[in-house]
């Protein structure tokens, strides 16, 4: 306290330089590694900047220059980007697809807010959100022309499939996890067989069966829409994996908690929803987010049964004579779309982890 000048730390910048020097050039071998890796990094960054910005063509009007330059041809995004975002949806109705996509994203954001978490609020929100989406996309009322599901596509289809799978799959997963822990042997056994069967089938097979095989074995009136069948099948697949994650979470809770709450006279419902599940979800948050992110990316598999999600639309976007050479640009565009959503999901997961730690930690 009395002699502050002695204990004053050296200027910050110097200490950082010191640390850098110590970490990167502490001996001759480290120095060489640093120089080689550093120049490789610089070369990569320079090449990317060169390709993506300096030598790129930006507007559709200049598309004829694309063959001459060595960089990216972003004209293809201006010309074909709408196709990636909307798929086969009729172009004069694109506003409906945009609005529907916003509605479903908003629904998902709202259901992420802790204030909405309730056994009544959440289903109400989902019914409202999905109902609005279907009305906007399908039409047929309020003077909107009918657009059948074969024409749905692009981002709104991808987001709809993902949201549908999650919203149907999560309650199913909770049910399966609880059933698998049931003390009744039949229920326990059925849940176990169901989960293990679904997990041992490839997703592709399940979706193909739902889209293509069901019409052969189910009477016409009971078939429903192909898109609906595919979402349900996808949800079942998701639920089988998610159920095991939740079960792991449930098993991580000391059994004394459940016994204590029963001893206090709490109902099964209260034990499950107030004691067990909140902790199970908190404990398995990282793996749940993992599964959700994987599911979002896996939605692109629906292209094999003829749906025009973002990835299929992208391949349609480059599948035209004049744009066939610029697939890298289109795929970069698609990658950015996926990045925005997946990064958002990861950040939300991180927020949830922080939040639950604050409350319980």
């Amino acid at each position, binding site marked *: 306290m009395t002699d502050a000048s002695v204990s004053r730390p050296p200027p910050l910048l110097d200490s950082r330089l010191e640390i850098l020097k110590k970490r990167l050039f502490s001996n001759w071998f480290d120095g060489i590694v640093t120089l080689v890796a550093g120049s490789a990094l610089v070369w990569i960054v320079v090449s990317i900047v060169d390709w993506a910005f300096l030598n790129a063509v930006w507007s559709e009007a200049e598309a004829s220059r694309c*063959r001459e330059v060595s960089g990216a041809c972003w004209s293809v995004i201006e*010309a*074909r980007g*709408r*196709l990636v975002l*909307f*798929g*086969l*949806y*009729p*172009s004069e109705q694109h506003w409906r697809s945009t609005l529907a996509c916003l509605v479903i994203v908003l629904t998902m954001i709202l259901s992420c807010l802790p204030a909405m978490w309730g056994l009544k609020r959440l289903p109400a929100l989902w019914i409202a959100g999905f109902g609005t989406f279907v009305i906007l996309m399908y039409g047929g009322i309020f003077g909107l022309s009918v657009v*059948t599901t*074969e024409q749905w*596509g692009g981002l709104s289809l991808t987001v709809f499939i993902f949201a549908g799978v999650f919203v149907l799959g999560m309650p199913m997963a909770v049910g399966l996890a609880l059933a698998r822990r049931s003390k009744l042997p039949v229920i326990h056994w059925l849940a176990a067989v169901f989960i293990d069967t679904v997990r041992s089938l490839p997703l592709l097979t399940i979706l*193909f069966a739902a*889209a*293509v*095989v069901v*019409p*052969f074995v189910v009477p016409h009136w009971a078939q429903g829409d*192909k898109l609906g069948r595919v979402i349900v099948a996808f949800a079942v697949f998701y639920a089988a994996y998610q159920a095991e994650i939740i079960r792991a979470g449930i098993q991580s809770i000391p059994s004394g908690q459940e016994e204590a709450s029963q001893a206090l006279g709490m109902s099964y419902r209260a034990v499950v929803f107030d004691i067990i599940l909140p902790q199970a979800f908190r404990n398995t948050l990282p793996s749940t987010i993992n599964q959700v992110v994987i599911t979002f990316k896996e939605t692109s598999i629906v*292209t*094999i*049964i*003829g*749906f*025009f999600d973002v990835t*299929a639309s992208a*391949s*349609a*976007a*480059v*599948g*035209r*004579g*004049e744009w*066939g*050479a610029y*697939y890298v640009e289109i795929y970069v565009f698609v990658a950015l779309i996926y990045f925005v959503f997946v990064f958002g999901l990861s950040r939300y997961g991180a927020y949830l982890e922080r939040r639950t730690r604050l409350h319980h930690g």
Partner: protein
Amino acid sequence: MIKSTIKTVAAAAMMAGLALPASAADPGPTITQIQERGSLLCTSHNGSYLGFAEVDDDGKWSGFDIEMCKALATAILGNPEALQLIPVSWAQRFPALQSGDIDVIIKVTGWTMSRDTELGLQYSRPYFIGPTNILVRSDLGATTPEDLEGGVFCINAGTSIERIVADYMGARGITYEALNFEKAEELRAALYAGRCDALAGFGPFLAATRFNAPDPEGFTILDAVLALEPEGIAAREGDDGFIDVINWMMSALLMAEENGITQANVDDIRANPPSASVERLLGASPGVGERLGLSDDWAYNMIKAVGNYGEIYDRTVGEGSVYKLPRGKNHLWSNGGLLYPLVLD
């Protein structure tokens, strides 16, 4: 004497028996279904297949297969817009047809024995003759496969192309080196970068590859045809009325080309038909519709909507398109091709 009388009676009975279904003009279950629904359910692609089914900037389908769907929709329902194009993947097309998701497959589908006999399909006459060709670098100056002796071929790994090239070159004793790639993009990049002298593949794919090259003039498609795959229109087995309509649709498109009837002049020719068969084809005199269970002006409507076969070809994959795929075997017989109309009587 008695024997020959019996023969005559039997023959007459057979004739009468054969003539019976023709005069009844039952169009068959598929066409009845299409007419009740008011639209044809035809195939498109899960993505795009260059030249045959591609999507324009507004999300509308175009291409050779799509034009054939429009022609069929116009023939049956009189309106090219009375068409629902259902995107299906390659693997999905056959089950989708059997389950009734689609009425017909027009999707560059080769006419093979197993598909014809085991999958419950019935094929129309081929509507496109798919050649396997060779695309070469122009600076090599090659005009025949023999000129490529010792050259490097880029080939799509694990496809029938691999075998076709081996058979063709083996039979002629031409040695070559094969460079295999899994994806179309890799094949193209290798050719453009000069890693191979030639690229063997399906003709339309080669045309697109040449168009997308940094210097399209630097590449040439050789005339030599290594193999042919006849592409047919496939429908569910056992619906003869529908296959009749498809075959006569195809025939009418070719007959129109043979007689110089185009989208632009079809009205003039209908007003002043040069021959009795053209007059009948365009429905100026009756007969062409009733026997198929359609209206008499179905061929006129179709040509008015999409043009003749040559016009469709030029617009989608030929000279009028970016691909500039030569007509080759898809010319009329009179121009050295393999296509011909049937006889309209």
